[in-house]
Each structure stands twice: as C-alpha cells, then as structure tokens.
C-alpha cells in the first residue's frame, strides 16, 4: 500500500438504486462489513442489505412518553393535593378526570422531543465535519445519485484491491475519500 494521504475509505457512485443494492449485496457476500450507503431518500432495501434493522429510537420514545406521563400527573398531584390544596365543597383534591388532558399533552410533548433529539443524537448530528464531504461529487447524494462507501477500517480493505472490486460493480465513478 502506498499511503499518500490517510484514507477514510473508497466511495463508489451509482446512477440508480438497483445498482447500489446489488453492489452492497456483492460486497457483503465477499465479507466486507464496514460499509455505508448514502441515498437521496430512504430506501428500505438498502437497509436490509446493509443489515440495518432495529434502532433504539422507538425504545427511547417510549421512555420519553412514560417520563412525560409521570411528570404531568405528578405535577398536578403535587401542586393540587400536597403543596396548595384547596377544598372546593369537599371534592377530591386528586381529581383524576380533570387531570387527563394535561397528562396526555405532557406525554406527547416529552415523547416528541425524545423522538427528535434521540434520533439526532443517535445519528451523531449535528456533525460539523464528515470525511465523505471531501468527495466533490458527493453533493449529488442529496439530489439524484447513490453512493456506497467502503471504510478503510474494514479488515478486508485494500486501496487497490477494493477499488478494483468497486469498479467491477458498474459504478459511475470511484473516488478516494481523504480523512
């Protein structure tokens, strides 16, 4: 290997989604694991080929919703029954039916905030810098092109060998991604 610039990986560009899907399948069969695909819209088949199935977002949102629910009911219980009880004609201080709307709103609010912040945090966003943006043609990933990156940390990665493999998968171009 002739190490000129440290490499993040090799990036292949595809003109349509079918080529990308079969390229991922081929590379996975060869044993490559540190792959990532970049598409202009979500493609389920790409996740399947990459072996991306479950994620933590749903679980986090459930926890967020639960926390919101407990917060809502707890706030109303504590303020109305403990900290500032007002006896209105002997009616119960902890009047659950009247506390349902705010409990519901707090549940939704906390769950929604968790969904967005959790998704961003798990994705590592905001990310001010990422090596893939060093490839000039990568700007098309947000328009009409599909990219596949083999990261240099993959045990099978070989600058020349991997490049030859990628070029055999009918890409539009193959580029080196400087780190």
């Amino acid at each position, binding site marked *: 290997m002739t190490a000129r610039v440290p490499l993040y990986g090799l990036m292949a560009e595809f003109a349509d989604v079918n080529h990308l899907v079969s390229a991922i399948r081929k590379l996975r069969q060869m044993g490559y694991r540190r792959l990532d695909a970049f598409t202009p*819209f979500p493609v389920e088949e790409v*996740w399947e080929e*990459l072996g991306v199935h479950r994620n933590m977002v749903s679980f986090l949102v459930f926890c967020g919703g639960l926390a919101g629910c407990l917060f809502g009911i707890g706030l109303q219980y504590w*303020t109305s029954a403990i900290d500032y009880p007002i006896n209105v004609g002997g009616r119960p201080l902890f009047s659950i039916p009247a506390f349902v709307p705010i409990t519901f709103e707090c549940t939704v*609010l906390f769950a929604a905030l968790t*969904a967005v912040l959790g998704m961003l945090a798990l994705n590592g966003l905001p990310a001010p810098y990422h090596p893939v943006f060093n490839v000039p043609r990568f700007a098309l990933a947000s328009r009409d092109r599909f990219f596949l990156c083999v990261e240099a940390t993959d045990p099978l990665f070989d600058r020349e060998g991997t490049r030859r493999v990628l070029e055999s998968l009918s890409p539009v171009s193959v580029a080196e991604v400087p780190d």
Partner: protein
Amino acid sequence: MSAPARDLGPIIGPGHTFETVTDKIAAVVLSETRKGWMLGFGISFVLLTIFLQCVAVLFVRGIGIWGINIPVGWGFDIINFVWWIGIGHAGTLISAILLLFRQTWRTSINRFAEAMTLFAVACAGLYPILHLGRPWLFYWLLPYPNAMGMWPNFRSPLMWDVFAVSTYATVSALFWFVGLIPDLATLRDRSTSRVGRIIYGILAMGWRGSARHWNRYETAYLLLAGLSTPLVVSVHSVVSFDFAVGIIPGWHATIFPPYFVAGAIYAGFAMVLTLTIPLRRYYGLEDFITMRHINYMARVMLATGLVVAYGYLMEIFMAWYSGNPFESFMVKNRLTGPYSTLYAALIVTNVVIPQLLWFQRVRTNIPLLFAVAMSINVGMWLERYVIIVVSLHRDFLPSSWGMYAGTIYDYGTFIGTIGLFLTLLFLFIRLLPMISIFEMRTLLPEAKVKEKHA
C-alpha cells in the same frame, strides 16, 4: 392507492426524474426574487404593521379599546383565536394522519400545510395573550415556583388550553423541522451563494443521507406522526372544552369536541386550497400539486363540512329535545334575534355553498373551487362569532343583556394577524422548499428497487 373508477389524473406529472423534481422545487428558493413575490410580501408586511400599531395602542391603553363588554367578555380575540387554531389543524392532519393511512398524495402538500399550521398557531397564540389585560405577565399561566406561593388551577379548561396549544405548537414545529432536514441538505449542496451554503449547512446539521441515519430518521418520523395524530384531535377538543365546560346556553353541549375538530379540519383544508391554488399557478407547480390533489382536498372539505352541518342541526334539535327554556331561547335568539343576519350568512357560506362540492365539475373547476374555499373561510369565522357573541349577549337574565360590535382596533388586529400570517408564509416560500423534495423522489417509479437475485 387503488385507482378510483374515474381517472383523476396522476399524483405527479409525467416525465419527471430525481433531477427535475429536485431542481424544480429548489429553484423557487435558489433563483432570483420575482416581482410578484415582492409585491405580495410588501402588501403582507403593510398589514403586519397594522397589527403592530394596534398592539402598541393596546399595550398603552388596555383592552378597553376593544369592543368587549359585560356580558360579552369574549369578542374578536377569542373568535380569532379559535378561527386561527382551526386553520392550523390541516397541516398536522395532512402530514400525520394521511401518512399513517398511506395516502401518498399528501406528499405534495404536507410541507406547505405544516408551515401554514405553524404560522396559524402563532397567530392564534397571540390572541389569548393580548386578551390578558396585562400581557407581560403571561408567564403566570405556567406552573413555576413563584414568590406568591401559588399554582395554576389544573382543573380549568383554560389551563388545559395553555398546555394543549403550546404542545401543539412545539410538536408541529418539530415535525416540520425534521421533515426539512434532508431538504436543507439538498439546498446546502445546490446553493451557489456562500451565505446560502453556510446558513443551509448549519440548519442541515451535517445531514449526509447515510442509510443508518435514514433508518432512524424514518422511525422517528413515523413515531412523530403517530404522536401527532391524537394530539391534533386533542387540541381542538380542549379548545371546545373552554366553551362546553361553561354553563352558558349555546356552549354547554357534549357535541362540541367532535364538531369543533371537524370544523377545524374543514377550515384548515379551505385555507390550504385558498393558498395552494394561486401558488401552484404562480410557481408553475401544477405537475406536483395536480388536479387530483385539488379534487381530494375538495372531498375532505365536503365530508368534514357535512359533519359541521350535522353539528348545527344537533344544536337546534337538542335545544328542543332537552326542554330547557334557556337553550330553546338561545336557538330562537340565534335564528331571529339581532344577530340573525350573521346566522343566515353562516348557514349560506358554510352549509349551502359547500354543497356544490358534490359535483365533480365543481371540484375540477379551479376558480369556482377557490370561491367555495373562500366562502368556507368566511363561514368558519362567522361560526365562531355566532357561538361566542350570540351566546353571550343574551344569557339567563334579561337585565344583563347587551350588544357587541368590534371596534376599529378589533378589525385592525384581525387584519394585522392576517398580515403576520402572510408575511411568514411569503418568507417561508422564498427561503425553504415548499414541497418536500425527498418525499417527492420516493414517489417516482425509478425509486422502487426491482428485486433481482444476483
């Protein structure tokens, strides 16, 4: 997506590719400012200054400048609050509920409708605060530990409203922003100006379209839709509790929540049509917002309009059936009292004219449909006027009856919030993609993976 018997045309015009969809929608933002936009923005901004002027006078002189009095303590402020918040329901309905029902046609209009929702809720939120008398103390509504040693009354629907509306505004903003992230990345990559690249770059937060990111993104987006669906129903239900929990005849009715929610969707779709009809033409987006979309929106209006008409009918029926003299007087007063003209106008604009939507020919006739949508916008405003003012002005004791009329400041504030709404909309159209680009890409035939086993 089963095609109806009659051909309604495609969801997206023929011959489009990923490139053309991206470039066409992004061009509205990235090209030079057009004269028509400048004119529209200018007019809206003038209206916005009227709002600022009215609010400045209000802050100096207090709410005595408005027409409200005793017995009519809720006037234009609450009418406009309910009107705006109703309009603000279409966006989340389109983005969340139609997403869960897999109505792919929603993709062309959801971004725009969400923005409209956000701005309508912003206008709505201003009214209760301005109505407070001492608006600078609005934070007393929030439960925070304070030197007075008191807490808000959580048993009051007005308190529920604070939580419902602020949650709705927050969740709508989140939903809208999450939907925008991939498109902001597109604008970052397509923008030719340095400033544009920096600003869109910061907002896109380094989105790169990685498959792992898309996977979590889709989960989060779907969950947000699921959370927003009951939320959107809850908001206008809670708004209707502001009335239904009170004992005023004309307010104290169990039909209020469903009837208010249907009215909100009705008003929201009318406003979406009012705005998209001129926009799609001006920006040449007929390929993305097709006749099929227009037709579907007209159908939703017809359906929700019928629910609203049923609500009107039930109010009259219950007044008779309950045998309550105050209820039956309220209906008689509505139909024949001093505000009967407004009630008649309400029935014509909100019930009679929308029946035209039964006809396919009307649903596909753009100028006529625009006129029907305008009629509903007016009708829904009249509905709130009738519910609030006409119920309040003559309640139980004839000695406490009175009359109500808005003053110039009432009208000025109302026109002013229309200015605020339009100003925000014009800025949105100019600065952000009004159609979700990445979701439009998924509708193209080339986005489907053809399964071939290698």
